């Protein structure tokens, strides 16, 4: 009996990693095929972002920076979508830019999904503007801190920036009521806090990938009003928006791909459980082996 047990435990400890790969793959694919979905409840750290955007007076001046690339679309895309949708609902004036070259393309996709398809009454140049990407990383933040029009002489399409009504009273970063960053890596939300938020006392909030989120918690809540961490953070903001504006829930349900973070939390949940199961099984096997070694040393 002891031999059977030790052989099983040894086999489990030496389990081919490809078995683990298949189980993880199944843990993700099966819930996706079954369209498994759980209700999501917003946490205080995400509600901070929702409450701030909600409480800003209609027509407030919002800077949204899309600082991510295709590799982190599943985490960042729903964040950008939710923030842009909320700003449009509240009739804020949104100034869109990017610190990453890939960010401009992602911003264009968000504009098409949210504004062009859902907010047909919004006018380019009056309600929103795409300033686009400019090279410079945190140097760009430095430059637009004191002179935004010096760097952005035209919008992303090459039109003179001064021809747009919404650019009339916006000359520097401190003219903005809030900076919303949808970021992944460097430059990102940390640089917005360091080079804009702290320097000019400008409210900053946003979302980052789950890998980066724990590292930005020290900035919350005095330097960052709120923080979305990964897919869960995006799902929480979508849930908060959907609770207040049911039409947003309909929009998200009808969206394809990565936009529906709430739906993607289904496979996320199952995958987390599978990983916890692996860790527990691995540790049980480890403790059994340790006990066996101890017994062999004692000579039983």
């Amino acid at each position, binding site marked *: 009996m002891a031999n059977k047990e030790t052989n099983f435990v040894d086999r489990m400890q030496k389990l081919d990693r*490809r078995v683990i*790969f298949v189980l*993880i793959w199944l843990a*993700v*694919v099966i819930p*996706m095929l079954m369209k498994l979905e759980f209700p999501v409840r917003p946490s205080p750290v995400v509600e901070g972002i929702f409450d701030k955007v909600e409480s800003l007076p209609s027509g407030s001046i919002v800077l949204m920076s899309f600082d991510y690339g295709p*590799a*982190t*679309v*599943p*985490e960042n895309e729903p964040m950008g979508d939710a923030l842009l949708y909320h700003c449009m609902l509240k009739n804020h004036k949104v100034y869109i830019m990017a610190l990453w*070259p890939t960010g401009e393309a992602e911003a264009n996709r968000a504009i098409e999904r949210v504004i062009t398809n859902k907010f047909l009454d919004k006018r380019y140049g009056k309600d929103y503007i795409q300033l686009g*990407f*400019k*090279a410079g990383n*945190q140097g760009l933040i430095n430059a637009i801190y004191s002179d935004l029009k010096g760097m952005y*002489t*035209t919008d992303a*399409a*090459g*039109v*003179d920036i001064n021809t747009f009504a919404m650019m009339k009273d916006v000359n520097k970063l401190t003219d903005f009521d809030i900076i919303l960053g949808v970021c992944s890596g460097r430059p990102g939300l940390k640089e917005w*806090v*360091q*080079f804009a938020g*702290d*320097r000019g006392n400008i409210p900053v909030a946003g979302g980052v*990938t*789950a*890998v980066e*989120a*724990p*590292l930005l918690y*020290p*900035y919350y809540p*005095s*330097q960052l009003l709120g923080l979305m*961490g*990964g*897919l*869960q953070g995006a799902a929480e903001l979508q849930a908060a928006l959907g609770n207040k504006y049911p039409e947003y829930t309909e929009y998200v349900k009808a969206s*394809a*791909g*990565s936009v529906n973070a709430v739906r*993607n939390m289904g*496979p*996320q949940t199952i*995958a*987390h459980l599978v*990983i916890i199961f692996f860790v527990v099984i691995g540790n049980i096997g480890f403790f059994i082996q340790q006990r066996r070694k101890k017994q062999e040393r004692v000579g039983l």
Partner: protein
Amino acid sequence: MTVSEYIVLWVGGLLTLMIFSFLYKDNPFYKFAEHLFVGVSAAYWMVVAFWTTLIPNMMGYFFPGILGKIATNPQEAEMVMSAITDLPMYARLLRIVPLIFGLFMLTRLLPKGAWLSRWAMAFIIGFSAGTNLTRFLQSDFVAQIKSTLIPLIVINNGSFDFIASMSNIVIVFGVIAALIYFFFSKEHKGWFGKTAKSGIWILMVAFGAAFGYTVMARISLLIGRMSFLGTWIDSIF
């Protein structure tokens, strides 16, 4: 779907499967995709750097006509060219300095002239040091200490809030204990050692949280890829 969208979907799908084939074992398909990625991504960043930095911020300053030739429309051409020509000449010619430093950087490839690249490195180091010193001091040091100066006894609506007080105590003493752990100029024994030990516990919780979030991040990216493969398979049927 247009023809080019189909091509993009199929090429993307096949390359995705080639990369995933590594999970079974290393194979020529994976190696092909990996080497293709290395070449394509290196060129991508070079092209982006060329069109977004080198041309508008350097060549355009010496030859504004270039900016006019690549502008999307005549109005933009006039705008960007006049923005440059309105600048004083010295401001435009000053861009020779980064050009020279950049060329010095390339001397790293030469067997004898490599010492010149130190000048370019010196500028990069000086710029990074100068910028980081003030920014990190303000945001990651002074502001963090200020955020740690919080009340240890929290009174809400006239009554003692146990959870908020406990949380603040954990934050204040947690930060101090973890900082003491990182202080290696004094031996970790006695009360100092005990405090450093409790700092380790705080750090372990932080690392556990970071691990949990890292797992979440990786799984999210896998979900995104599976979603893409689902779209590809849908397009077939």
